[in-house]
């Protein structure tokens, strides 16, 4: 679709049009000629992302890095991408961009087309999640470089052990729209395979939010499996280390879903159909078309299952597409998507925000959903506190298929979703309950889809599809609720910290001063202290212990279950545990500062990837998502400590326990929330309960907005 739009828009006319038989048309035909790629490029610079020298540099980096990561993922190797920008000679306006990867390499005969021809790629027809979609990216960068510097791009590639490195210069003949190869040579690299592309280009080097550095940092956050290095023009060298050494799930290619196709697409599909029967064609060429659905569709379209798809009339195809819309069809399969995963989003954010030392990081992943026949999935992450500015706007990081979106923030559905939420209810400042909230936070929103609904070809902003916005808002609210919980807990703790200062410092001084003034002995303060505190204080501390990789897991530490990132197979799960090599040790200290003994139940939620090891005292119940202890009575002014170990988490993945109490007045507990899930498991209770709450909040916001609108209308009505 996109591809046709582009060519049509710039007047590449077909023969049929040019040979119109009337004289006027003949007249017109004199003006009709092929347009050179240079001209095409000149006109489409903005949509291709090369409209300013600043942006051109970022786009150049982006196109090359996207390709490198795509290629590595296709070949299932952990990406190692080296980016460098250097000044071209003495010039400060011309740069040499070079990006090298350890991907599968490119065979020699494809190099000219890939780097020298617009609209040449492997992903345009494939329905699956990838960064590249159009087959324009890298050749546009090469063309831009050639047009602005007059110099050639250089490509080197090695396709496997035992093969040499093939290098050449690429020159695009802009009149003929044809790539030419020069200066071919053979070379040697240590690594088994990979590609390097070097492009000279006009640019302007800037720092700040819209810079190459920020682009790469964003890329590192959402590609925690990649190691990226970057050398700036002044020689500064940055390394974005890998936060995970597990490859993302491989994305399966899927057939088009009937809800996502238009008549034109179906015409093309029927023309090339291998199957002679319509029913077989529908079943094999589309996704989600079981035999029952096929029968229903054929009935609704008034077509026969034995019709030959190649012989269908336009009318028949139209009724088929109509029928697709009428009949209930299952959602497309979602294994074509590769989300980052909650833990890795958190880990990526943590690693790249280290210098801020944030106070809290959370993430949330929605289940896959569908927009116009294309599956998509939303992930949201939040970083809070640390040295982030308290009064400025929340910083927004947008990503689509693991690619940072740098420009057009204001015109993007990812931003709009944030703006539509009333953040005040979650404890952030927001003028009038609308717009980007203020506060010391970074919000990350990632959409993964086989077909990201971009607003235009520059792929910088996502369109406002209601289903997409709805999903993003649900994910944001989920994170926001947890953030709010954290803030409340913190506030409560801070208040109680004051009480500790009171009982440990100020009260003893009051006692000794009054005793001193009167010349009497200092009285015992124990009872006064429990009267002042009158709470149960629950303190939670987490530390990480390194375990030797080779060391066999002790019997008592043997994992009781295996849950892994994105349901990897069993053996891969073992690999995760041993390669991360950390045991997370939590200790929960329960201090009874009330005047009577207290006995109650404590629940601790554990992350889905974690595996419970040793736990003391012995829990009364363990389910895959929570551990529960029915505590014995703790006497007044005494303390009890619970210790438990988790395996399967990286260092720092888990920095705060979610602790709940049951069977005690929640008002006199500090450091834990009241358990409202009853005797059931978390998934169905707390989470189910949360969904309900979120839905309620959503409704309340909508109502508020509606009534605001109403009152505004009334107000203006009154003015007239």
């Amino acid at each position, binding site marked *: 679709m996109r591809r046709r739009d582009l060519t049509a828009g710039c007047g590449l006319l077909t023969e049929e049009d040019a040979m119109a038989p009337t004289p006027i048309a003949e007249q017109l035909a004199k003006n009709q000629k092929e347009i050179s790629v240079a001209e095409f490029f000149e006109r489409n610079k903005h949509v291709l992302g090369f409209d300013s020298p600043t942006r051109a540099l970022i786009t150049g980096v982006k196109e090359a890095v996207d390709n490198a990561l795509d290629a590595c993922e296709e070949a299932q190797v952990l990406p190692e991408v080296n980016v460098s920008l250097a000044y071209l000679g003495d010039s400060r306006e011309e740069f040499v961009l070079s990006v090298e990867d350890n991907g599968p390499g490119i065979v020699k005969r494809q190099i000219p087309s890939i780097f020298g021809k617009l609209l040449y790629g492997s992903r345009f027809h494939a329905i699956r999640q990838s960064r590249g979609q159009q087959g324009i990216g890298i050749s546009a960068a090469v063309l831009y470089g050639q047009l602005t510097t007059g110099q050639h791009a250089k490509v080197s590639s090695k396709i496997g052990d035992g093969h040499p490195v093939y290098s050449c210069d690429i020159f695009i003949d802009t009149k003929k729209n044809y790539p030419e190869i020069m200066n071919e040579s053979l070379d040697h690299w240590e690594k088994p395979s990979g590609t390097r592309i070097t492009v000279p280009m006009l640019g302007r080097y800037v720092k700040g939010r819209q810079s190459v550095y920020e682009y790469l940092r964003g890329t590192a956050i959402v590609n925690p499996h990649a190691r990226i290095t970057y050398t700036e023009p002044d020689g500064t060298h940055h390394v974005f280390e890998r936060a995970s050494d597990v490859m993302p799930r491989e994305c399966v290619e899927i057939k088009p879903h009937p809800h996502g196709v238009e008549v034109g697409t179906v015409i093309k599909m029927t023309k090339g159909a291998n199957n002679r029967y319509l029913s077989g064609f529908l079943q094999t060429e589309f996704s989600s078309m079981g035999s029952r659905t096929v029968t229903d569709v054929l009935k609704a379209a008034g077509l026969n299952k034995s019709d030959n798809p190649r012989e269908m009339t336009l009318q028949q195809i139209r009724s088929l597409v109509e029928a697709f819309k009428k009949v209930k069809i299952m959602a497309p399969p979602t294994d074509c998507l590769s989300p980052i995963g909650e833990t890795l989003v958190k880990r990526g954010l943590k690693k790249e925000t280290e210098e801020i030392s944030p106070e809290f990081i959370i993430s949330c992943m929605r289940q896959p959903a569908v927009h116009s026949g294309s599956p998509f999935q939303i992930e949201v992450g939040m970083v809070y506190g640390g040295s982030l500015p308290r009064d400025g706007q929340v910083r927004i990081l947008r990503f689509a298929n693991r690619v940072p979106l740098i420009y057009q923030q204001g015109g993007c559905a990812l931003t709009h979703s944030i703006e539509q939420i009333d953040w005040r209810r979650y404890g952030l400042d927001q003028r009038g309950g609308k717009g980007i909230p203020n506060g010391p936070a970074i919000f990350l929103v990632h959409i993964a889809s086989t077909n990201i609904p971009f607003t235009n070809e520059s792929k910088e902003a996502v369109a406002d599809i209601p289903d997409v916005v709805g999903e993003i808002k649900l994910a944001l609210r989920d994170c926001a609720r947890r953030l709010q919980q954290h803030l409340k807990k913190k506030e409560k703790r801070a208040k109680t910290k004051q009480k500790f200062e009171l009982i440990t410092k100020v*009260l003893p001084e*009051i006692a000794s001063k009054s005793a001193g003034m009167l010349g009497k002995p200092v009285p015992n303060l124990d009872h006064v202290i429990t009267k002042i505190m009158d709470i149960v204080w629950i303190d939670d501390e987490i530390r990480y212990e390194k375990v030797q990789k080779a060391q066999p897991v002790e019997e008592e530490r043997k994992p009781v279950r295996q849950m892994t990132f994105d349901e990897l197979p069993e053996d891969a799960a073992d690999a995760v545990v041993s390669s991360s090599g950390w045991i997370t040790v939590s200790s929960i200290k329960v201090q009874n500062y009330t005047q009577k003994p207290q006995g109650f139940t404590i629940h601790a939620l554990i992350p889905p990837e974690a595996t419970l090891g040793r736990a003391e005292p012995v829990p009364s119940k363990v389910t895959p998502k929570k551990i529960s202890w029915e505590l014995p009575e703790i006497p007044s002014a005494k303390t009890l400590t619970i210790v438990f170990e988790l395996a399967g988490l990286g260092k720092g993945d888990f920095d705060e326990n979610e602790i709940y109490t049951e069977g005690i007045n929640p008002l006199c507990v500090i450091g834990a929330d009241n358990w409202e899930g009853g005797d059931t498991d978390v998934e169905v209770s707390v989470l189910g309960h949360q969904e309900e709450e979120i839905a309620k909040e959503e409704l309340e916001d909508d109502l508020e907005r509606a009534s605001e609108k109403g009152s505004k209308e009334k107000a203006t009505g009154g003015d007239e």
Partner: protein
Amino acid sequence: MVTKAVPKGDAVKRMGDIASKIYHDLASSEIPTLSLPARTKSNIEFNEMYRVWKYGNATTTRSAKSLDGAYMLLRTMHMADFIKSMIDQKKSSTLREMYYISEGWGLAKFGAQQESDSLAEDLEIMTLCMREEFKLRPEEDGARVIGNLTLEERTRKGDIMKIHCQEDVGDAGYSIPYNVEPEKLKIKSVDADFILAIETGGMFDRLAENGFDESHRSVLVHLKGQPARSTRRFIKRLNEESGLPVVVFTDGDPWSFRIFASVAYGAIKTAHISEYLATPAAQFLGITPSDIVNYDLPTDKLTDQDTRALQAELTDPRFADEFWRGEIELQLKMKKKSEQQALAKYGLDYVTDHYLPEKLAEMGVI
């Protein structure tokens, strides 16, 4: 006929009482607390006997249950101990000196002098002793007086000095000391028709230069903004001992109305000793909002703060009479204010030749 002062307790004993109360609480396993009258606008009542506004029955309790409360109690005890030792050693200090001394009180030290000043007031209220008995004094000096009166002041050396407030003083007048109690200051004789208390130094100097004290047989007292305790106490003694009427002449804005209220009715902050400081017979001369209209004075716009202050005065029981209600509402309506010195619009002598004589006649003072 001096007003009966606040009952003079044995200050040293009262300080010990505070420590005892707290010690007793702790020894009987209670959270220690101290109570004192609430020092708020809503807790002042008109006292029929003294005809001034005093604190009502509402109390606030400082409790060691909160961290702030606990710090308050600790500081209160440190201050009580300090005052006790000052009395023992027959020393005195300024409020500011005490603030610096509190630096050495460890946890009990203050964050700002305002906090220690206000705790000293709390102590007065709790113990019913006067700050002067505590041997604490403000560092601000009292204001100035010019008029046909003779005073006797006991000097630092213990000599008695006779001062006539026209002949023995310069243009600045007689400076009121911080202690104006009879043992320090005696009013020997007064020959005047009324006492005129003036808010600003500029206007005080204008009246002195124009000889208003002689031409209209008046005692001029400079208030210096919100008047110090000693100034208010001096006016009260002069009024009671000489029987002369007191009129107050201020700017025409809500803050000046409060200055009048503290002279005539008692200030909220010192309502515990209002009968000792306030002069119920004092009358407000102006500038009233009506004057602004009647004399067509140059004005400034009310600020938001001014407006809020006026609105607060509408709910202040001290201003709950017809005169004030009318004037405050008028000012809120016209949204304007004027200064005393705006009268200069009509010439330097206008205030002494026209405005004051007219207003004083209207009020029946002359």
